[in-house]
């Protein structure tokens, strides 16, 4: 039984790491659904001048031919100019790297950012593409046959759980 670190504590750690590095013009984009939850926690604590952007990568996934358009897409809302912007791209779990690849492709259809910094709550290894997170809360080893999930309680507390795949 792997004991997982406290997600709320990891959020605090990330805030502490990011605060000295961001400028007011830096913008943040969270990926639905878990990345959006994490971003909603981080964003207010970093003093950013732009509203939080939220992104759904449904139309950029590379597995459309197998899965179709399966989950109900949410509407991507980015209320600021991506062009020339330093971006913090926030997701909950970094695994194969395909989600981040899709997110970057979609971002570039909005404009050409100055930089993209990837922030994740947990890096579980298993990369299939050359992608890395500049900031991560923790590294986790996920046993075979299981997967890592982020949950949000009714009060808004984040937690990490392992469940059968």
């Amino acid at each position, binding site marked *: 039984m792997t004991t997982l670190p406290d997600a709320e504590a990891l959020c605090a750690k990330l805030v502490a790491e990011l605060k000295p590095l961001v400028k007011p013009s830096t913008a943040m984009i969270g990926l639905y659904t878990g990345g959006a939850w994490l971003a909603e926690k981080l964003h207010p604590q970093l003093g950013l001048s732009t509203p939080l952007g939220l992104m759904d990568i449904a139309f950029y996934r590379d597995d459309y031919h197998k899965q*179709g358009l399966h989950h109900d897409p949410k509407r991507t809302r980015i209320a600021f100019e991506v062009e020339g912007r330093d971006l913090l791209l926030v997701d909950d779990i970094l695994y194969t790297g395909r989600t981040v690849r899709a997110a970057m492709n979609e971002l570039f259809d909005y404009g050409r950012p100055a930089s993209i910094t990837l922030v994740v709550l947990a890096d579980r290894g298993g990369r299939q593409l050359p992608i890395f997170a500049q900031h991560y809360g923790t590294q986790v080893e996920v046993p075979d046959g299981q997967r890592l999930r982020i949950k949000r309680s009714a009060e808004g507390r984040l937690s990490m759980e392992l469940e059968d795949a």
Partner: protein
Amino acid sequence: MHNPQLNAAGELQHLLSIEGLPRAVLTQILDTADSFVGVTEREVKKVPILRGKSVFNLFFEASTRTRTTFEIAAKRLSADVINLNIAASSQTKGESLLDTVANLSAMQADIFIVRHVASGAPYLIARSVKPHEHVVNAGDGRHAHPTQGLLDLYTIRHYKKDFTQLTVAIVGDILHSRVARSLIHGLTTLGTPEVRVIAPQTLLPTGVESLGVRVFHDMKKGLAGADVVVMLRLQNERMRGALLPSAQEFNKYYGLSPDKLALAKPDAIVMHPGPMNRGVEIDSAVADGPHSVILPQVTYGIAVRMAVMSIIAGN
């Protein structure tokens, strides 16, 4: 009877008619369209989702408007689009409908967008295509125009949010209108409590109440308290077919003027599937007025068609 639009898993395989689609499928399409509206509002209006797929526009009945919106929608999904003006080609040589489709099938089609003058033609095609091929009905005779119905539903949802609180009035030539039939099915499936049709007797199909609508011949009574007013196009042939005496009399009793519109709710919206006959079924003052959402309907039409194609092509 098994619904030919759904595959064994209950997923949308073809879009032939709104009738018979479960509420969940309709909602999925509208929600997905929502995401695509966002795409159409940004500078790069394309997403890569249908890259490598081929969409064939099979229009057996001419239409520039509908065909163009499907073409734009498909291209925004990064699909390849081939337009076939069938009326001018093999059909006149006597090639059967199914032979035409079979020939195109051999050219690796993924989606057929079909418009035909005969009701039911897309069903015939859907029965004959290969498992990975999908059919979207772009209008068949008087029967259905599901993407138009869906974009009308999207428009209503955008402005009015909750179908279960609405009174919707559809005015005009219901008898010949596939748009009206599709919209009625969609509204009733989504729980609209009061759907009204307003028309003279000659323009109402037999037993139209069985579709779940209330019939009005008096437009003033029919518009009272309406949240949404949908005006249908009146074609010139109707005067020649002994259905109506003149456009003038029709306009006086069934055309939408500002003072008739005033009988609806103060925040009522006015819709029209287009193209409009100004001065016949709708006065310019209304078409260009503050209640009209006719232009946004067009934008939503592209997003809805993008949604439909991206959902079925993945199933």
